[in-house]
């Protein structure tokens, strides 16, 4: 099982809806990733902190039409789709209504742009994932102490490799992007990845594609080898695409599926509820009925009923 927790949703606000072309493109990207071996894919809705979330209308908080996508991709039985929200924050004080947002998405990620925001994500907020914009120069220095405490808490850090493959210099010269600009993006990417690997000591890193186009999808093993040349720990590398993202997903889904992240009601005997969402009803989180079971449904329950009757 391979995980890719970042396939961007084409729209970054609540006003516009993606058009058919963009949706097609999204589907194609997902299918390409799936053919490359990824089974659990999260669609990422990224918003700025200034965008107002419709907190009062819970059904509008998540704009990703996951049911439609699942229906259209039903020919791919082993594909599992999840939703994720990434909030870009400058000023941590502006962040409000996080719990309401949390309950509508499978994964909650934060992209801090200042050191203060990062500090706050690590200490105060209950989140699953911290991501950085690796294509631009980070405004602050990543300290081992901060990153280490986040990793101890179970928060993971994301390396998104789409900056690296959005047209390569020397080999392709795309007309829209100036070559120097691209070169800077890649330089920044390498620099930031090195910083992240150094400050986290290769622990708690997840690798995701962030692919806007099917072209940007890559084989996971190849990306691992590429990152190993940058100094990612050999023995921990494999976990970056298997164990760590699974933990993020389980962590995020425990929040919405369990009581205080400790007790989980699971009636399906064989499948794992947390990484499997086949029988999920659309407004899952607030409604526990799907996860309740009548006494008659289980063998021990029927026995109990019989005894009571007697």
């Amino acid at each position, binding site marked *: 099982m391979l995980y890719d927790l970042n396939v961007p949703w084409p729209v970054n606000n609540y006003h516009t809806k993606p058009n058919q072309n963009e949706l097609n493109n999204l589907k194609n990207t997902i299918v390409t990733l*799936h*053919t490359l071996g990824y089974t659990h894919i999260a669609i990422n809705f990224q918003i700025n902190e200034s965008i107002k979330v419709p907190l009062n209308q819970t059904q509008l908080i998540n704009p990703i039409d996951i049911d439609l996508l699942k229906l259209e991709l039903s020919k791919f039985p082993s594909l599992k789709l999840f939703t994720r929200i990434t909030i870009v924050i400058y000023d941590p004080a502006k962040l409000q209504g996080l719990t309401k947002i949390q309950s509508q998405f499978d994964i909650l990620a934060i992209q801090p742009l200042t050191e203060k925001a990062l500090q706050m994500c690590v200490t105060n907020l209950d989140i699953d994932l911290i991501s950085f914009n690796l294509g631009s120069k980070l405004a602050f220095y990543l300290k081992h102490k901060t990153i280490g405490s986040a990793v101890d808490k179970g928060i993971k850090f994301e390396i998104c490799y789409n900056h690296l493959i959005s047209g*390569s210099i020397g*080999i392709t010269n795309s007309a829209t992007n100036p070559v120097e600009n691209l070169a800077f993006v890649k330089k920044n990417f390498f620099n930031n990845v090195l910083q992240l690997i150094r400050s986290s000591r290769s622990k708690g890193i997840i690798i995701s594609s962030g692919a806007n186009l*099917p072209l940007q999808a890559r084989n996971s093993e*190849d990306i691992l080898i*590429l990152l190993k040349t940058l100094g990612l720990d050999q023995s921990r590398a494999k976990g970056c695409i298997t164990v760590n993202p699974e933990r993020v997903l389980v962590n995020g889904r425990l929040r919405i599926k369990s009581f205080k992240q400790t007790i989980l009601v699971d009636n399906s005997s064989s499948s794992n509820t947390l990484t499997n969402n086949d029988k999920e009803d659309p407004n899952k989180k607030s409604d526990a009925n799907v996860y309740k079971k009548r006494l008659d449904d289980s063998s021990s329950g029927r026995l109990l009923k019989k005894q009571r009757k007697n």
Partner: protein
Amino acid sequence: MVRIKHRYILFEVLYPPTKSGEDSETFSNSQVDALLTLHQSSPSTINGKLIVSILRKSIQTYYGDQGAGTAAVSTIVKYWSNKTSTGIIRCDRSAVQMVVGALTLIDKLDNQNIIIRCTHISGTIHKCEEYSIRKSKELIRLINKQTSKQKNVSNFLQSLQEGTNINVSDKDDDDDDIQGDDE
């Protein structure tokens, strides 16, 4: 005597759907559509020579003169099949990470957008060959299974069956195996 040790990298070239082309509509319809779009036969303009020159350029771009001097010099394409878009690259044992890294970062061959996927790395070319044959058989089986109801099996399937017969070390008996396999 100690011999020079190499690594053989088995790679395949995948063709992702374009943003506005015809295939972008049908691509996500079924598994077979996706597989057949990604695994296409390559045009004859793509050959081993082109791949190695692009690869060397990529190594030069990302790993600089040092990479070009150490990794790129010893790298050659040992095998390339247009029919199946699969190939084997031989490189120095110490340079394998650099070569795979540079291969991953290639996104264009002969003005066509592509994804290069390294499926197997091995010390002998024979193992790469075996792996490739096994994977192709699996692919054929998968596509056959899915298309048993439909009738429009693409030409690619046929070329895949023919192309699986890798001629690196003159293995001729493979073709029979595959033919027997899907009947």
